């Protein structure tokens, strides 16, 4: 089903007209209410009146994650806090988090695009949606929640974790849609199997999965093991949260709801806009947001866009599944991890060398596993294992607290991690998430 046929199937020319109107308003709002945007536009020599149509988007300066951190916490808000009804923040733990805000209208917009997303995934007003995304500062839980309520479906706000209870609720409540990260869907499948519950015999029919990178193979495995149709959803808190884009029944890319968020793909080096079909960095400009409008935000996600008509009838452009990142950020179990965080934590621990390898794997137990290989310094070596074990425990505790993520530390022989000139190859990602 298409939640909002009028908007989602709107002819392209009309859409562009709408985008142009909304862009003018957004630029004006940013310029008048957010000093950081005013400064950027002034420096670029752009007046809001210069931006007449969506074709002028390319003249606007970019916004980056650093801009958001520099203006922490509320400096990028385009309205007084009295009009902000909710804040969320990013999962990232590099320095300060990225804080985003929503007016009452923004919450309405979010519910609308999330209702579209859930409909893309197959849900309707009669469905029971088991929401196993985490509730809290993370946008996943409440994003799904408001979309499901908007749709008139029944939300089960179970949040993440306690997998046996997830299976019990799937069985007892007869949930028809599951929302969580793709790796957690497979954990649920494993647990159901251990509990002797056959998911194929339950009413469960659909799943919407996102917040971490995954592959088409994994989607098919989830579909086979849970006996459902699995849909890839995409979003980021800087733009609104989940609800930015969603795959549809055609399973050929994710529709970007571009009446609210207009995408571009740029060359991350030259910053030139690339034509449709060319792979590059995804950039978003919000068109309707009030508390936290955003101009040309560089997501660092690599994808390509298609404006070809889709079999489903929606006229929203489609992005391909995210193929990677332009920075070295890893997304592990929904948590953003930068190698630099690991490096600085290690530097602070006596006995470690600043040489490490990060290994991410998904083979065991389905959840992403993070392993950090650390070289031991020769001073730690004696005949005793205890010293090494105490050291290993200390490093594990330190990294776990810095990253907010459980991980395994493996001690390796000194001078065995390759020292390369320039950027070291510090990451081994075995999840096979390439395009």
């Amino acid at each position, binding site marked *: 089903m298409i939640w909002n046929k009028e908007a989602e199937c709107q002819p392209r020319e009309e859409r562009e007209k709408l985008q142009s109107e909304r862009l003018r308003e957004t630029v004006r709002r940013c310029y008048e209410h957010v000093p950081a945007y005013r400064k950027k536009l002034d420096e670029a020599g752009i007046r809001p009146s210069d931006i007449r149509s969506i074709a002028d988007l390319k003249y606007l300066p970019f916004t980056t994650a650093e801009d958001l951190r520099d203006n922490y916490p509320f400096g990028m808000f385009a309205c007084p806090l009295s009009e902000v009804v909710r804040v969320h923040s990013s999962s990232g733990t590099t320095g300060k988090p990225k804080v985003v805000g929503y007016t009452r209208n923004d919450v309405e917009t979010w519910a609308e695009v999330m209702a579209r997303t859930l409909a893309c995934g197959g849900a309707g007003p009669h469905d029971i949606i088991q929401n196993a995304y985490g509730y809290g500062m993370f946008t996943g839980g409440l994003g799904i929640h408001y979309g499901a309520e908007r749709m008139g479906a029944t939300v089960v706000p179970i949040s993440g974790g306690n997998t046996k209870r997830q299976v019990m609720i799937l069985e007892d409540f007869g949930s028809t849609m599951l929302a969580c990260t793709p790796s957690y869907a497979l954990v649920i499948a494993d647990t159901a199997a251990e509990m002797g519950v056959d998911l194929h015999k339950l009413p469960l029919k659909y799943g919407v999965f996102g917040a971490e990178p995954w592959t088409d193979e994994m989607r098919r495995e989830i579909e086979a093991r849970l006996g459902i149709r699995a849909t890839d959803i995409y979003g980021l808190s800087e733009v609104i949260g989940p609800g930015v884009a969603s795959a549809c029944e055609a399973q050929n890319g994710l529709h970007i709801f571009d009446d609210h968020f207009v995408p571009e793909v740029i060359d991350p080096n030259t910053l030139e806009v690339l034509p449709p079909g060319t792979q590059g960095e995804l950039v978003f400009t919000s068109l309707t947001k009030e508390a936290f409008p955003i101009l040309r935000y560089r997501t660092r996600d690599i994808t390509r866009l298609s404006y070809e008509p889709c079999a489903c009838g929606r006229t929203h452009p489609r992005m391909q599944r995210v193929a990677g990142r332009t920075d070295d950020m890893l997304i592990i179990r929904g948590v953003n991890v930068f190698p630099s965080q690991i490096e600085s934590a290690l530097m602070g621990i006596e006995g470690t060398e600043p040489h490490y390898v990060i290994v991410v794997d998904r083979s065991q137990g389905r959840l992403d596993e993070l392993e950090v290989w650390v070289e*031991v310094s*020769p001073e730690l*070596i*004696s*005949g*005793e*294992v*205890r010293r*090494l*074990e105490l050291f290993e425990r200390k490093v594990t505790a330190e990294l776990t607290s810095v990253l907010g993520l459980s991980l395994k530390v*493996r*001690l*390796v*022989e*000194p*001078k*065995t991690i390759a020292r390369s000139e320039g950027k070291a190859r510090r990451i081994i990602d075995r999840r096979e998430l390439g395009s």
Partner: protein
Amino acid sequence: MKVNQISVFLENKSGRLADVTRVLADHRINIRALSIADTIDYGLLRLIVNDPEQAAKVLTDQGFTVAQTEVLAIEIPDRPGGLAGIIDILASQGLNIEYMYAFVGRSGEHAIVIFRIEPVDKAIKALKEGGARILTGSELYAL
């Protein structure tokens, strides 16, 4: 009184132990006793060799991480209760045995056990007073 033990940090990778024994063989160093303390990911190889200085040098040259540790080589009467007698002496003085392992050769009628004990000087005193015989490095390497 004290004997030098060579400790080598080894990752649990196939062939790593063979690399060590090959280097020692190539330099005609004789292994007299060894033990491995292992965890899932790595192990510590402890060696008593006939020439610890040379062994440490050649292993370090080959890229191994080597430490030398002082241990005690103690004669143990080769009969039931022989080891118990020695351990009783240490326990009565509140001395802590970090680890121990058997030596391959014999000293006359006696077996030899390698001990790592903290603090070592207090252990030497207690063992001597208890009547135990501690081998010197030159005695041990020559066996």
